[in-house]
């Protein structure tokens, strides 16, 4: 019986029922539901399948395998931690949105067919926007609209792709990887160059690409995350993009095109991260960069790379969540996360400082932190497959990550110059959530085996050891000299200061361009139609007026003629009829 409940449903249904509960019950449920969901999910056996049928389509609501399982677990953990993190606030909207959003993402992970995937894909889009709107500002409202269009846009691309695919094959099932030998996996939709891809492959590729924040499709992320609420951003950071990584991994593993795309993703956002002032936006850019590693991993598609992707996603959700929690705490207490307005908070928020620093270390992949045991797998996989340029870019980005996430975030928030702000330490629930997350970041970095056991492929068979001298030493070199560079640049005064600013990114195209074009088109169509019609009517009216004058009383046709004229008309008609006989 209990196996008939799809994972995620507990969170969705429970979340939807929350508003009916009193405040205290709500808070309890908020934390209990993810835990219950995790307990339920874990006991589902691998290869568990839950099928149903709609419209004669045989669909698969749930399909458990090792890949879906690891994402399911980390999504539950993330939901649990975020729930704790947001306990100090009582906003039913966020609570409902957060739970249903995470539930949707979990359900999507276990979807066994494209339609089910689509349903939950859209569910995450629709629910998550409320986390942005919940900031209740004009800016967040507008951001939310843009976010929603992008997210649903991803959904409709997925739907379109599913339809085209179904039309061609008569199936919507998500097929397992094909094992090509040499530990190389290939997803059902994998393709190596755009030229060879079918329409369905492309559509779904871009559907995933939007959510995974591919270059040029990425800007919704940096737009939305800094505008969400304190807790909202933490919710957001965990699910949407990682769901996309999961989906890519399942269906596009082994696609060569993903490798350059992923490599670009690792490198390109960090330039923005360096000059960005809003620290949550910095984290958003850095999140984008982390996704790049995973995309590269998916593109390589070897067992090691896929394991690397899965474990990196796992670790990433924790440390990125932790970083967003830290910045959220700062925002909550200090009222801002602008680098230009912060500094010196370490005295007032010591715990937050520590936890955030743990997150920073983890994202930078210091040895003994979680990032180290996951990211190095992807780099090694890239090296194994001789993706030399990619490897170098990843290495460059690794240094860069440390630079902006590892150093810049803690430095400008907690150290640097004293901002003079007098703030309190974060609330207890936040500290607990951050504490657990920090503990996990370190725990995974040290006792990595439980994580490795969850990975899709047997790590022992891959002969992978994260900690050997060469790995540790080279990684330390990379990171420490990055730190040295930071000091050097600061000393030289070359480091770009934190400035109040907006940095133009591709979003300019739609925030300035497309929107204006759409509105202008709409008005032109409407006004154009009206004008055209009025013009037409104007001309027609002129004619009608003339006709009317003829036909009005007093006009030649609107008034009986004098008898003489009438008689003449009769005579003319007579002639005409006579003419009939002669013609």
């Amino acid at each position, binding site marked *: 019986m209990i196996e008939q409940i799809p994972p995620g449903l507990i969170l969705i249904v429970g979340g939807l029922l929350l508003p009916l509960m009193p405040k205290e019950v709500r808070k309890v449920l908020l934390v209990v539901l993810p835990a219950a969901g995790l307990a339920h999910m874990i006991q589902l056996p691998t290869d568990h399948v839950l099928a149903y049928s709609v419209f004669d389509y045989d669909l698969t609501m749930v399909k458990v395998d090792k890949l879906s399982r690891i994402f399911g677990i980390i999504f539950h953990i993330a939901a649990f931690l975020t729930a704790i993190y947001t306990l100090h606030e009582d906003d039913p909207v966020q609570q409902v949105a957060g739970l249903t959003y995470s539930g949707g993402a979990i359900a999507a992970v276990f979807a066994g067919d494209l339609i089910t995937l689509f349903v939950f894909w859209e569910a995450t889009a629709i629910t998550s926007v409320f986390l942005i709107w919940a900031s209740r500002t004009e800016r967040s409202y507008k951001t939310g609209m843009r976010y929603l269009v992008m997210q649903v846009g991803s959904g409709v691309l997925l739907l379109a792709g599913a339809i085209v695919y179904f039309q061609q094959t008569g199936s919507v099932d998500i097929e397992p990887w094909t094992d090509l030998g040499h530990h190389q996996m290939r997803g059902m939709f994998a393709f190596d160059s755009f030229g060879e891809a079918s329409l369905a492959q492309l559509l779904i590729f871009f559907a995933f690409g939007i959510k995974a924040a591919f270059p040029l499709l990425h800007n919704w992320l940096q737009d939305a995350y800094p505008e969400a609420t304190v807790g909202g951003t933490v919710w957001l950071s965990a699910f949407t993009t990682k769901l996309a990584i999961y989906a890519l991994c399942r269906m596009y593993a082994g696609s060569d095109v993903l490798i350059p795309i992923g490599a670009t993703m690792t490198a390109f956002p960090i330039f923005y991260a360096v*000059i960005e002032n809003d620290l949550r936006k910095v984290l958003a850019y850095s999140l984008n960069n982390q996704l790049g590693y995973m995309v590269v991993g998916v593109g390589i598609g070897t067992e090691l790379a896929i394991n690397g992707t899965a474990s990196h996603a796992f670790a990433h959700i924790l440390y990125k969540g932790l970083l967003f929690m830290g910045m959220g705490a700062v925002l909550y207490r200090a009222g801002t996360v602008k680098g230009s307005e912060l500094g010196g908070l370490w005295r007032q928020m010591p715990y937050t400082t520590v936890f955030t620093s743990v997150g920073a270390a983890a994202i930078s992949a210091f040895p003994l932190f979680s990032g180290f045991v996951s990211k190095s797998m992807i780099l090694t996989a890239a*090296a194994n497959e001789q993706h030399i340029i990619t490897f170098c870019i990843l290495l460059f980005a690794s240094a860069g990550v440390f630079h902006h996430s590892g150093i810049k975030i803690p430095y400008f928030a907690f150290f640097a110059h*004293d901002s003079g702000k007098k703030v309190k330490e974060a609330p207890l629930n936040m500290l607990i959530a951050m504490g657990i997350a920090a503990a996990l970041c370190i725990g995974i970095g040290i006792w990595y085996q439980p994580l490795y056991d969850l990975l899709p492929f047997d790590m022992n068979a891959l002969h992978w050891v994260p900690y*050997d001298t060469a790995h540790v030493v080279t990684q330390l*070199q990379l990171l420490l000299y*990055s730190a040295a*560079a930071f000091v050097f640049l600061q000393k030289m005064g070359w480091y770009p200061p934190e400035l109040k600013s907006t940095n133009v990114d591709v979003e300019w195209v739609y925030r300035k361009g497309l929107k204006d074009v759409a509105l202008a088109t709409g008005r032109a169509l409407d006004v154009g139609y009206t004008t055209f019609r009025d013009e037409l009517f104007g001309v027609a009216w002129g004619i009608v007026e003339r006709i009317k004058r003829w036909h009005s009383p007093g006009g030649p046709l609107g008034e009986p003629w004098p008898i003489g004229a009438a008689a003449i008309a009769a005579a003319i008609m007579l002639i005409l009829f006579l003419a009939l006989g002669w013609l």
Partner: protein
Amino acid sequence: MSDHGHGPPSVAPEKVKVIVGFLFFICAVAVLGELLPSFHPHEHAGLEFVNTFGFHAWYGFLSCVLLVLAAAQMRKLVMRDEDYYDRD
């Protein structure tokens, strides 16, 4: 660093000096780590240059310097006022 109306450094300069000194020290140690007997670089065809002595050290340093300098240049191109998008 260039300042913008902020208060005093939140960490005393002398402590910073210590910290920086320590950083330089472990930087040196890290490079020397390559001399450890257990140091067996992973061989990858085409990636031999990675295993040259101190590669990760200078690569990391240069990467960061170039990143920051490039970003600073990029800023000239992309930076706008904070309310850039809010203006109509």
